């Protein structure tokens, strides 16, 4: 890019500065604690990294971002040392940057299309986003001036990534927003699913506080479908519109014999106990979880990696405290390594920490003892056949290849589907045969008047950022519907 260097003479040559690595806890240290693995860049490193950005005239990175963060602009402000401006530009499109900077799969989004990546490594956009967001949280967050009240009321159901984003954008436009959350804490999967060592809960609290500071009324312990129904909210409760962002919270099991033995968990239960209820601090916290010596985690997605890494930490903590053998934690996945749906970074983190991978393997039966506890698992080896509907090669069992393995905890992480509770008394809301809500991809409009939906409830289990993108697009369309204008910038 000679043109870029010409107009900005101070900018170093592309590739002259290496991509700044983020300091992390060493694997043999972090596998025995729940503290955050990645420690964040220093100001010096962040500014050095920011200088690597080419400031493209037509930035592809923005097109790679589901919420279209003004990436080159915030990076430029950062490189110039204007932190408040960097924050303002970053948060213009993203209400939860400290979260996205940690859990977005940047390698398949903004960073994948970074022009620099054609010859060198891409700009570490995620790390810079995290750095700027953390800087702001450390300073104390200033909420933007609210716009004049519109007098319109919106019910946002589910305080996860989609709901928080939708609520924040609508509140910024002057609408009165009530955010309903079924659990006792807001955040959805950010609280119950993603572990402390990937996303510290204080970061989630801080981002939720920001959303509340915009004027969003957060109602906890409010199970829509039970305490209120959708039709009640739109009828007697007087809401002008509703957004459904209740995610995909229903665990799927394998439907193999023995799945109800003690010690067999859905990933949802295992992670909720550990993360939301803080079972890793038992007995200081009241909720227990079984700490396994030999743990098998079934599945190959991010949830499986999170479960395996939690189980590993629990096991190491116990083994260090009691002087026992270290734990054995194994991921059991039916396809091969290249098909693992988890982020490569998380797979590598898990491997570094000592999680083992048993690929091309599928459980067929779980064995228990007389007291009803799991003691073993029968698996079958798989091979890959022709590609299936998903484009990935279909795993086929190899006849006669069954083998037994000893386990004392099994975590089933093979996916989730939307929780149907919210559909009680919600007539007119069309759903697919997978239980997801039918909604317009661009606007989030459902088949029910005045109701929008976005995130995992529409797509099935996906990413935090795609849910946020859906929440954002729905907020824009709800605003259009309520006041007949384009959303405020």
């Amino acid at each position, binding site marked *: 890019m000679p043109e870029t260097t010409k107009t900005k003479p101070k900018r170093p040559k592309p590739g002259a500065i290496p991509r700044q690595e983020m300091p992390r806890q060493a694997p043999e240290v972090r596998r025995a604690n729940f503290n955050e693995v990645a420690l964040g860049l220093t100001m010096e490193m962040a500014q050095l990294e920011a200088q690597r950005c080419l400031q493209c005239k037509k930035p592809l990175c923005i097109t790679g971002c589901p919420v279209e963060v003004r990436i080159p602009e915030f990076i430029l402000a950062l490189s110039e040392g204007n932190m408040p401006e960097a924050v303002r530009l970053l948060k213009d499109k993203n209400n939860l940057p400290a979260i996205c900077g940690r859990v977005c799969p940047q390698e398949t989004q903004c960073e994948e299309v970074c022009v620099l990546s054609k010859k060198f490594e891409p700009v570490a956009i995620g790390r810079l986003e995290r750095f700027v967001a953390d800087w702001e949280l450390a300073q104390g967050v200033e909420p933007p001036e609210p716009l004049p009240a519109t007098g319109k009321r919106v019910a946002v159901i589910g305080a996860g990534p989609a709901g928080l984003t939708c609520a924040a954008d609508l509140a910024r436009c002057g609408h009165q927003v009530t955010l309903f959350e*079924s659990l006792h804490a807001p955040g959805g999967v950010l609280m119950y699913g993603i572990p402390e060592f990937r996303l510290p809960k204080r970061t989630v609290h801080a981002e939720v506080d920001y959303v509340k500071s915009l004027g969003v009324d957060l109602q906890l312990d409010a199970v829509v479908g039970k305490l209120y129904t959708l039709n009640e909210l739109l009828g007697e409760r007087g809401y002008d519109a509703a957004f459904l962002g209740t995610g995909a919270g229903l665990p799927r099991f394998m439907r193999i014999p023995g799945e109800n033995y003690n010690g067999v*968990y859905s990933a949802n239960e295992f992670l909720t106990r550990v993360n939301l*209820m803080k079972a890793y601090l038992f007995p200081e916290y009241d*909720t227990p979880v079984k700490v396994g010596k030999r743990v098998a985690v079934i599945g190959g997605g991010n949830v499986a990696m999170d479960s395996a890494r939690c189980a590993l930490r629990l096991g190491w903590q116990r083994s260090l405290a009691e002087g026992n053998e270290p734990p054995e934690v194994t991921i059991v996945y039916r396809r091969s390594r290249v098909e693992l749906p988890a982020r490569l970074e998380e797979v590598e983190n898990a491997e570094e920490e000592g999680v083992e991978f048993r690929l091309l393997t599928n459980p067929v039966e779980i064995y228990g003892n007389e007291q009803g506890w799991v003691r073993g698992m029968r698996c079958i080896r798989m091979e890959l056949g022709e590609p299936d509907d998903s484009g990935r090669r279909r795993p086929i069992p190899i006849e006669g290849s069954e083998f037994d393995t000893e386990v004392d905890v099994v975590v089933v992480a093979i996916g989730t589907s939307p929780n149907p509770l919210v559909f009680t008394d919600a007539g007119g809301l069309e759903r697919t045969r997978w239980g997801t809500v039918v909604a317009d991809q661009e606007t989030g409009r459902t088949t029910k008047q005045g109701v929008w939906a976005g995130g995992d409830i529409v797509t099935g289990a996906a990413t935090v950022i795609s849910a946020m993108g859906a929440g954002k697009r729905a907020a824009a369309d709800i605003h259009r519907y309520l006041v007949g204008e384009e959303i405020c910038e």
Partner: protein
Amino acid sequence: MYKILAREELAPITKLMVIEAPEVARKAQPGQFVIVRIDEEGERIPLTIADFDRRAGTITIILQEVGKSTMQMGMLEVGDGFLSFTGPLGEPSKIENYGTVLCVGGGVGIAPLFPIACALREAGNYVISIIGARHKELLFWEEKMHSASDELIVCTDDGSYGRKALVTVPIRELLEQRDDVSRIWAIGPAIMMKFCSLTAQPFHVPIIVSLNSIMVDGTGMCGACRVEVGGRTRFVCVDGPEFDGRDVDWDQLLARQRIYLGEEKLAREKFEHECCSKHKSSGSAV
């Protein structure tokens, strides 16, 4: 915070609490449950709804102090409160006019049985109730159950009050004597519900039980409460808590209730130790 408006000691380890929760009371129906959490460190504990008052905006819960959390709850006073109070959860009881029904309550199970018996009677049923406990000290609400029933049989395992019998004995007798019993509700400890179901089995009478599985969220999210009913895995929190006891895999349920016995013991000992040392340091007599 969800405030405790009234508190009553029904037995040394059985406490009744009236909680201010107007929105929950507005929707509560017999057979449903709530999930409560005491404080920031607290676990989510499912409790069946013993009574509700829509006008006063209250929910009545009854708890038996068996573990750390319930012991800590038992120490709460009027004016204290719960940090979370989520409900009403689960499917309500199917109340219809069945004709003659038996309502069987064992120990703390008498509490959730009461609103169901009231609703059944109001629907026109002839309600015969059987309440029982191990010992007379553990028995409560005889008066209330009396007012909710056309006939009431009271028994204790040790004969310290009423008839000396397990509740299964009068169930069998009634089923042998009368052929008009068209449905039974039996609520109490899992082992009692198991044997009530076995007793009812040969008479081909549906027996509705309310399962008390271990839960976390109570909304179908975690599957901790799952149990096989009629050969199918069901979630007690959203598919139940009521099922036909003849279809329940009781041994599985009983095993699953014991998952955290070790951890529960540890938590209770730690709590008792802390309570003791607190009492010692403040100089007050226990």
